C-alpha cells in the first residue's frame, strides 16, 4: 500500500485510469470534470501517454475511439452538456465494439443547468442517450477510493467486453476530498483486450467466439480490416442481409446481458431481515447509510442495497433483496430514473421515491422521513 493522502474524486478517477493502463486522453474542459483533464495533461506524457485538448467533446470522444483502435487504452471525461454531444460517437463505439471509457461528472441539468451543483440526472442518458438499440455498461462510485477502483474496473470491463463503459460520478463525489490509500500500481489488476492469434487472412474482427467477444486487432499490427458504423458482417464490411444484421445485434446484447452477474457489483447492509430496503447509488448512498444507522438505533428493520453498477441493471439482485421487504425507498438526485427500474421489478411492494432536482444533496433526514412516513 502507498501512503495515505488527501485526494479529490476527480483526481482519484484520473489516477485510476493511469493505473489501469490508460495512455490516451482526448477531451474538452467542462465543469465539474476539468480536474481530470488537468491531471491527465500533467501525468500522461510522464508515462509515455498522450493528452490532447480537442476542439469540442464530439472530437474528444472521436479521438479516443481512434486512439483505442490504434491500440491505446483511451478515455475522455466530461459533464452533462458535453455528454450530450458525445452520444453519437458513443453509439459508434458500441456499434464498432471499440473499448473506451467515458467519465461523466454529473451536474444539474437540463441544458447549462447549474454547472457546480450535483445531480444524478444522466442515468437514463447513459443508458439510452445514443440512437438505436445497443447495450451499455455504466458504473457509479460513492467515494473517492471507489472512484479510483471503479475507473480501473471501467477500463477492465471495456477491454474485456469490447464496449464503451461510462463512469457516472456525481459532482459531490467528483469534488469531495477524502483520505485515501491507493493501491500500488503493481497491485492493480489491469485487463487487456484479447488480440487475434490467427493469421491476418483468417481474422474476423466481428466473428463468432465462445464468449461473444471477438478478438480486436490494433491498427498497424499487421491485420488490415474495416471498421464502420454501418451494420457489418463478421469481416467488418457493410451488410444489409437480415441474417447478418440481427445476429450481430443479438450478440452484442448477449455479451453484456449474459455477463450481468460478472459486471453488476453492489453492496448490501442488513437486507436479510429488513422490512424497508433503501436502494441508492453514488453520494446519495452515503446519506442512506447514515439514515439507516439512525433508523436502526430506533430499532427499525432497514437495509441498504448500494448499486455500484447501474447498467446493465442488476434485475435479479433487486428482486432477491426486495422479496421479503414491505417497502423500498429509492433516493436519487433526479426525478426517479432508477426508481422506475426498481418499480418494474418490485411488483406490488410500495416503492417510495425521494428526489431532489434543486442542485442540493439528499440529506439523511430526508431518507429517514421517508422511512417514517405512513
Amino acid at each position, binding site marked *: 500500500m502507498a501512503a495515505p493522502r488527501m485526494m479529490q474524486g476527480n483526481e482519484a478517477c484520473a489516477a485510476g485510469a493511469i493505473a489501469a493502463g490508460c*495512455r*490516451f486522453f*482526448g477531451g474538452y474542459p467542462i465543469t465539474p470534470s476539468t480536474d481530470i483533464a488537468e491531471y491527465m495533461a500533467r501525468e*500522461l*506524457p*510522464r*508515462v*509515455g*501517454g*498522450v493528452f*490532447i485538448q*480537442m*476542439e*469540442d467533446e*464530439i*472530437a*474528444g470522444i*472521436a*479521438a*479516443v*475511439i*481512434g*486512439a*483505442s*483502435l*490504434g*491500440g*491505446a487504452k*483511451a478515455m475522455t471525461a466530461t459533464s452533462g452538456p458535453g455528454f450530450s454531444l458525445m452520444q*453519437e*460517437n458513443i453509439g*459508434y463505439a458500441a456499434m464498432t465494439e471499440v473499448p473506451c471509457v467515458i467519465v461523466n461528472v454529473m451536474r444539474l441539468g437540463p441544458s447549462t443547468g447549474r454547472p457546480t451543483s450535483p445531480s444524478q440526472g444522466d442515468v437514463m442518458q447513459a443508458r439510452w442517450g445514443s440512437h438505436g438499440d445497443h447495450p451499455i455498461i455504466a458504473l457509479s462510485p460513492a467515494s473517492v477510493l471507489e472512484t479510483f477502483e471503479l475507473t480501473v474496473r471501467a477500463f477492465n470491463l471495456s477491454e474485456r467486453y469490447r464496449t464503451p463503459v461510462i463512469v457516472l460520478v456525481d459532482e459531490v463525489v467528483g469534488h469531495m476530498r477524502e483520505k485515501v490509500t491507493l493501491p500500488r500500481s503493481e497491485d492493480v489488476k489491469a485487463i487487456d483486450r484479447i*488480440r*487475434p492469434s490467427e493469421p*491476418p487472412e483468417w481474422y474476423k474482427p466481428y466473428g463468432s467466439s465462445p464468449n461473444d467477444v471477438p478478438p480486436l486487432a*490494433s*491498427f*498497424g*499490427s*499487421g*491485420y*488490415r*480490416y*474495416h*471498421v*464502420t*458504423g*454501418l451494420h457489418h*458482417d463478421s*469481416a467488418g*464490411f*457493410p451488410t444489409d442481409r437480415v441474417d447478418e444484421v440481427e445476429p450481430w445485434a443479438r450478440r452484442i446484447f448477449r455479451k453484456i446481458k449474459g455477463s450481468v452477474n460478472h459486471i453488476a457489483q453492489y453492496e448490501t447492509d442488513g437486507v436479510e431481515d429488513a422490512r424497508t430496503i433503501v436502494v441508492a447509488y453514488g453520494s446519495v448512498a452515503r446519506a442512506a447509510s447514515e439514515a439507516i444507522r439512525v433508523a436502526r438505533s430506533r430499532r427499525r428493520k432497514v437495509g441498504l442495497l448500494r448499486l455500484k453498477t447501474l447498467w446493465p441493471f442488476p434485475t435479479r439482485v433487486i428482486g432477491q433483496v426486495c422479496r421479503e421487504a414491505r417497502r423500498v425507498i429509492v433516493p436519487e438526485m433526479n426525478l426517479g430514473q432508477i426508481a422506475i427500474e426498481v418499480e418494474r421489478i418490485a411488483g406490488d411492494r410500495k416503492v417510495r421515491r425521494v428526489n431532489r432536482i434543486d442542485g442540493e444533496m439528499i440529506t439523511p433526514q430526508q431518507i429517514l422521513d421517508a422511512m417514517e412516513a405512513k
Partner: protein
Amino acid sequence: MKRGEHSAYAYLRHSKRFPHVWCPGCGIGIVMGAIIRAVDQLQLDPDHTAIISGIGCTSRMPVYMDFNTMHTTHGRALAFATGLKLARPDMHIIVVMGDGDALAIGGNHFIHAARRNIDLTSVIVNNQIYGMTGGQLSPTTPFEMRATTAPYGNIDPAFPITDLSIAAGAAFVARSTVYHSQELEKYVRTGLETRGFAVIEALSNCHTTYGRLNNLGGAVEMMRHFKQASITRKAAEKLAAEELEGRIVRGVFHHDISRKDYSTLYREIQEKAGGAELANERIDSMEMV
C-alpha cells in the same frame, strides 16, 4: 501480382466489396485511383497505412481499399484520425472527405486539424453538392446555383477551401480536378511526403444531382468543363480578376514545412516530462504480430 505494376489491383479488397456504390461516371473512383498510385509510388507499407473517412459518397472509399480502414461518423473523420495518429505516430494516415463532410458538419475539426498541423493527408472530393442524400446545398455550392434545398438558387457564398486551409495553418495545400488525375496523384504524393497537415482539394463531378439540377450535362460534359475551364496557377497569375471569373485554378497554393507537426511537438512534451522512452516501448509493443 507485384506492387508497382498494375498497382491499383494489388491495393483493392477482392472479397465481397464490388460492385461499388458510386454512380456510373462518378469522379470519386478517379480520386481513389490517384491515392492508390501515390501510396504505391512511395511504397508505403499497407500495414502501416490507414484510410479514414466520415459519411457521404466519398466516405465509402475506404471499404474498397486494402489498408487499415475506418468509416466513421459524419464530419468527424479528422478527429478520429487525430486520435489514431497520436496513438500511432508511425502510421501514414489519409483522410478522405466530401465537401459537406469536411467543411459543414466537420468544419470545426477541419480548421483545428490544420491549426495543429497534425501529420494527416486530407483529400477533399469537392463535388459542390450533397450527393448521397440526393442533391442538397453544400458549403461549396457556388452562388446562385441550384440544389434541392435551394430551389430558387443558392444565396450562401461558397467556402474557398484553399484559402481556408492556408489561413488555418495547413502545411501543404493544392487543388486539381478529376480530369487531371496525374496531377491529383502528384499532389497526394506530396501531401504524404509532407510532415504536417496536407489538404488536397479534388474538384469532382456529381452529374447525378448537381449536374442535373443545374443543366450541366452528364459525366462527360462535366469532365470536359474541368478540362476547359481550369487553368494552372501560373497561368492564372497573368490574368485579371474578371478574366478569372468562372475559372478553376489548379496548382499548389501553399507548401511550408518550416513549422513542426503536432506529433513532433508532443514528442518533445513527452521528453520534457520524462516519458519518451515509455512511449517508444508502448508503440513498439503494438508492432507486427
